[in-house]
């Protein structure tokens, strides 16, 4: 099962390596990991996407909680939540036909063209992982020059908050 674990941790050097080290030392899967400071600059929020049986996920959350730098965490897949990922994708757009096709596809997926050059378009797209996958499927494979994905971030719906 895929789980999204949100972690609030002290914004200190080395905190990220403690988490990464924990996952490699204990052999846990890690699909993606994003981290950035919150509105409180002393705190970072990390979003981890991992897979494993219920027992493994329980161990992962316990082991994360055991890290001294971790203030609080939640498995947001346990309740209603919103998941978003950002993708920047650069595609070949040379003739008018190609450019028109890419523009149309971008509109259908509610993306934005953020950089236009003679032979390339760069598109910004947000959504859950499946939507980004679908976009990649929809455009002509041969025309893709580069993709960058941020990894998933997520937040609980409504009153459910992860804060201190």
């Amino acid at each position, binding site marked *: 099962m895929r789980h999204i674990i949100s972690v609030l*941790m*002290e914004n200190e*050097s*080395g905190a990220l*390596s*403690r988490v990464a*080290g924990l996952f490699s*030392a204990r052999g846990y899967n890690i699909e993606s990991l994003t981290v950035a400071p919150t509105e409180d600059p002393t705190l970072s929020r990390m979003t981890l996407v991992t897979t494993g049986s219920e*027992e493994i996920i*329980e*161990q992962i959350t*316990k*082991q994360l*909680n*055991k890290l*001294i*730098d*971790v*203030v609080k965490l939640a498995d947001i897949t346990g309740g209603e939540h919103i998941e978003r990922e950002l993708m920047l994708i650069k595609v070949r757009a040379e003739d008018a036909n190609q450019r028109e096709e890419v523009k149309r596809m971008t509109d259908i997926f509610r993306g934005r063209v953020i950089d236009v050059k003679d032979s390339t378009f760069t598109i910004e797209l947000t959504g859950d992982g499946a939507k980004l996958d679908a976009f990649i499927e929809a455009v002509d494979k041969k025309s893709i020059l580069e993709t960058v994905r941020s990894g998933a971030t997520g937040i609980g719906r409504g009153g459910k908050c992860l804060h*201190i």
Partner: protein
Amino acid sequence: MKLSGAEIFVQFLKDEGVKHVFGYPGGAVLHIYDALFQQEDVKHILVRHEQGGVHAADGYARSTGKPGVALVTSGPGATNAITGIATAYLDSIPLVVITGQVVSAFIGSDAFQEVDSVGISRPCVKHNFLVKDVKDLAMTLKKAFYVATTGRPGPVVVDIPKDTTDPGIKIDYEYPKEVRMRSYNPTVKGHPGQIKRAIDIITSAKRPMIYTGGGVVLSNAGDELTAFTKTLGYPITNTLMGLGAYPGTDRQFVGMLGMHGTYEANMAMHECDVLIAIGARFDDRVTGDTKQFCPKATIIHIDIDPASISKTVRVDIPIVGDIKTVMSDMNKELKAGKQKPDARALDSWWKQIEMWRSKDCLRYDRNSALIKPQFVIEKLYEVTKGDAFVTSDVGQHQMFAAQFYKFDKPRRWINSGGLGTMGFGLPAALGVKMAHPDHDVACVTGEASIQMCIQELSMALQYNLPVKVVNLNNRYMGMVRQWQEFFYDRRYSQSYMETLPDFVKLAEAYGHVGMRIEKPADVEGALKEAFAMKDRLVFLDFITDQTENVYPMIAAGKGHHEMHMSPERELA
């Protein structure tokens, strides 16, 4: 008062109540050593290798319950300390290890004697810190002691770049009396509802079993555990780390469990209907095959570390909290409650256990012309009246000591259970002796293990630490030899210790007394003579039977009911 970083370091140790620091100087910690030189409150003990230094601090901590402190330099000082740190980590021992670091401006430049100490130690510490600013030094040290000693204890490394201790930069110092960390608040009190549920299940058991580990020792909960066990009248087993938390001579004690545990302890585990696990972590050497572990039991688990619960074995009733606090709450509940154990069921359970016990699974050949290692431990027990601090290294001798020395008090049995570090025994014994100068301290070891930290015989002389080294010398890495005999068709690959030194002369070269004992009849006399020499370290080299093995034995991956008995016992 205005102090330099080095002076703050020393003053802080004083204020924190630290009496002894085990260490080894070097370039990155010279400022600190200069500050240590100019005072007398904190005593520095010069070890001969950083591994020995951390083990000595570890032995000191295990025998006192206070945090052990070690001080080493950057680079090789820090890497040599790692084995000691990992040893303490696996057994949850509170240590603060200070590693010097190169000047902060040089960090990351592959400077002389630079390693990433924070990075290297990360997987084997409870937490670690790098202190780049002298203003953070006192508070960071406070946090280090706080983290090391609270919750599930463990080693904490504080890496201090040389410029942080610069004698030219003085700042105001005040001892931080308190520390609060929003990200670290260990649970102490057990959930009352869970405790009630546990008591209901415990008192309605027909075939109960109490299984306790090092957590009881760490939490100083021996008295509470003993009261609990006595009130219930249930059988109790200890893990290797838990020995002494419950009196080893008591009838309710059925011996150690696990790979080399007693027949009665392992069979009672296999057959019990309620298992009460306290401060134990279901280690693979204890559980054997987890699929066959306590197949009939409802499992209650009390532990301060939530991550220990249901880690390898699914638990039915978890209680997270400090063992001492939880056990006294349980004892109150037991006293107040109407629930009483089922006396009839308990009676027939004990009859069954006594049948298992009557197999006398630890029997060995007492008529041998060769010295049996078990015999040496039995005599050690008698000569020291069961009241010595006993440290050990790792291997057969460790198991014999655990099986045959009946520890009645906690913190008397000191060994590397989790990491299994050869070389631990001697420096640990010296740390123990530093803390308990008036007690007998014995280091039970083997000719292979002792050579891994033998240089500390020198530290023993310098600080007058007259421990007794009980060397069970069978000229083999005994446990390796045993596995090769059982599982590798007697191909004794690299396990024979050729070209051994003359240990008597070696002991004498270090300024100690050496004795070689070759006949069973001389064992007791030699031990008596050695322990009578109160002010001398005596190295007793017992030439033991090379073919002796540790029994009973559960092969790795087998169940508790699948024990091998000694050929001696199977003939009987």
